[in-house]
């Protein structure tokens, strides 16, 4: 079984190499990348079932070095679950982009480098999830970041270069901070292996722990877009091509959240910054969603809600009980799927209506009824209406917080509920305007205009592109993702059980001995 683990990283890298060589043959590229990601999906499913049923994490020491010294790949339930979800999401978005590329004549996507970069991004994401030591986590981050630099400036148009520069410079700073934190941790403890770190960290004085802790948290917060380090996200995501934005929104910030889950639960178990995290979570939720309300462009609205919902995951981390960690993991999974689906649906709106400004788009309900459904279901899911997974995740978080029951917890719960309602407001208002408003509606138009006039100054409020037909494969990919969001709600029971087990096992982190046992064939 352990032979499968390195394949999660090597398969996408090999696929990228083949896709790069086959740069001139588009069909070959498509076949290679779809095949690669499908294989990874299967491997991830096998690993998840194995790890969950055997209750024993799988550890692989790469190159045969003894365990605390060499590179360790480490798959526990958390890693397996996230690899599983992200591989499915990556595959769906890939199919979406294939449909887009095939129909467009590629004005926006230079195909020859898209597939290799996309597969390298996948390799980086998987590597980060299964890294057993901090430095390998750093390498995973760098792989996915460099691929994301290429993807966000795809085609090298002026607007993409402008926004890409901000994204790249911010990412560079966080990488350097992460690297320095690793150096400081190695200097203090003489190891970068996470299992060994969790044992040795307690020997340091609290003040030293705090410095190391904050360095790592700041580096990860930049990547996860936690307020006040989230300023870069809403400006840089919307200009990238729709599938790229979708996968960035779904996965890249979650890799940061994953790293924060590991630091909080495994490395810094005896160093408590939970009060600060609670306040930061509240600020992230509220500030993010207020930004969303002031936007007129769908992709920007979604980028701001993305920032705001990262706050829920930080909230769960800050509660720091097993139930809360389980709820955080469930919420992360829910958010990966739902946010990606919403961005894909908006990609379809952009094609169908030729704009994503809610001041311009109208009458889509009649013109594209299926699209209306595809947007509506994930929108109310993200807003947290029952019976969808967003409601289950938020309810689990609030439940865990209420059982701790300090006054600050109660304040954050109220903040969470307000955020959820405002998210619903922003997304349903967009739905009302873009889909529900009739194309030829004269009555009450001036009232509408007056009420919306404050949105006129928002960025990209007047942006307009060509209207185009939607290829069937793009609709199919989006429908599949919507189906997945519904499946997360229907099968919430078993999934939540897995998450609860993750929460319980993270509270009791793996020791070096267990790691060595897990490495036995």
């Amino acid at each position, binding site marked *: 079984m352990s032979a499968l683990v390195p394949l999660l990283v090597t398969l996408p890298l090999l696929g990228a190499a083949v896709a790069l060589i086959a740069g001139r043959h588009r069909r070959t590229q498509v076949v290679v990348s779809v095949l690669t990601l499908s294989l990874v999906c299967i491997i991830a499913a096998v690993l998840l079932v194995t790890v969950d049923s055997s209750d024993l994490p799988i550890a692989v020491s790469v190159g045969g070095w003894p365990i605390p010294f060499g590179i360790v790949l480490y798959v526990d339930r958390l890693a397996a679950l996230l690899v599983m979800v992200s591989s499915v999401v990556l595959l769906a978005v890939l199919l979406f982009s294939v449909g887009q590329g095939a129909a467009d004549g590629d004005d926006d996507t230079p195909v020859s480098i898209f597939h290799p970069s996309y597969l390298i991004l996948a390799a980086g994401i998987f590597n980060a999830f299964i890294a057993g030591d901090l430095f390998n986590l750093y390498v995973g981050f760098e792989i996915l970041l460099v691929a994301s630099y290429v993807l966000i400036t795809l085609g090298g148009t002026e607007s993409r270069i402008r926004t*890409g520069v901000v994204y790249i410079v911010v990412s560079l700073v966080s990488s350097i901070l992460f690297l320095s934190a690793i150096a400081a941790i190695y200097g203090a403890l003489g190891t970068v292996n996470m299992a060994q770190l969790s044992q040795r960290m307690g020997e340091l004085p609290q003040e030293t722990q705090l410095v190391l802790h904050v360095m790592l948290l700041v580096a990860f917060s930049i990547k996860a877009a936690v307020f006040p380090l989230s300023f870069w996200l809403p400006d840089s995501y919307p200009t990238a091509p729709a599938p790229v934005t979708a996968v960035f929104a779904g996965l890249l910030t979650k890799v940061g959240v994953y790293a924060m889950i590991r630091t909080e639960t495994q490395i810094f178990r005896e160093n408590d910054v939970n009060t600060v995290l609670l306040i930061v979570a509240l600020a992230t939720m509220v500030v993010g969603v207020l930004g969303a309300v002031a936007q007129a462009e769908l992709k920007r609205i979604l980028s701001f809600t993305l920032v705001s919902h990262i706050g829920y995951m930080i909230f769960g981390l800050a509660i720091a009980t097993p139930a809360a960690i389980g709820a955080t993991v469930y919420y992360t999974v829910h958010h990966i799927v739902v946010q990606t689906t919403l961005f894909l649906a908006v990609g379809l709106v952009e094609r169908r209506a030729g704009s994503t400004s809610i001041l311009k788009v109208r009458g889509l309900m009649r013109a594209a009824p299926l699209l209306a459904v595809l947007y509506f279901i994930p929108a109310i899911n993200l807003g947290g209406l029952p019976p969808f997974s967003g409601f289950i995740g938020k309810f689990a978080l609030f439940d865990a917080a209420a059982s701790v029951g300090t006054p600050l917890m109660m304040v954050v719960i109220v903040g969470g509920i307000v955020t959820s309602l405002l998210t619903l407001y922003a997304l349903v208002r967009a739905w009302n305007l873009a889909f529900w408003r009739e194309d030829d509606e004269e009555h009450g138009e001036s009232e509408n205009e007056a009420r919306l006039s404050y949105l006129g100054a928002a960025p990209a409020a007047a942006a307009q592109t060509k209207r185009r037909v939607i290829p069937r494969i793009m609709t199919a990919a989006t429908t599949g993702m919507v189906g997945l969001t519904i499946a997360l709600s229907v099968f919430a029971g078993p999934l939540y059980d897995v998450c609860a087990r993750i929460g319980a096992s993270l509270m009791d982190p793996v020791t070096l001995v267990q790691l060595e046992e897990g490495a036995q064939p």
Partner: protein
Amino acid sequence: MDVSLTLIIIMAVLFAAGVYAMLERSLTRVLIGFLLLGNAANLFLLIVMGRPGTAPFWGSADPEQMSDPLPQALTLTAIVITFAVSAFLLALIYRSWQLGQADTVEDDAEDVAVRERSAVDEDSMDDEVSDDDDDATTDFVGVETAPITVLHAKDVPGLRDDAPTDRPHRGGDR
């Protein structure tokens, strides 16, 4: 753990200079800042190695006398990553210059919107606000003196409004 004080001082200076250069608006300076920061972090990794000893080859010396090999491996990896990212940044700077004859970091769209909106509000309130600092930016050094605009002040042959993009030939192999 005894380490060289010189190395620590150099690292601190590199960190300071790197942060300062990265705060600039010119992308070329940002690149220089990133290189300085990257080297500072690499030095940091070397410093935490502790007392330098002999080369860590198996059997060549008593293990107590050897250097710690792990930070060296980490540093090598970090150097390679820094190198790759710098190459990408250079390409980005070139492209930015090709498109706009400048290599500056532009303002956030949201910031521009907020600034315009607040400018309108100020006008309507008829405050005695002076417009002197309208053009004020966060530059430490003006755009005019940014390296690439200085080198190529006017009409450059290499500058094209319709800079080519990487598009496949239509109808080629589809």
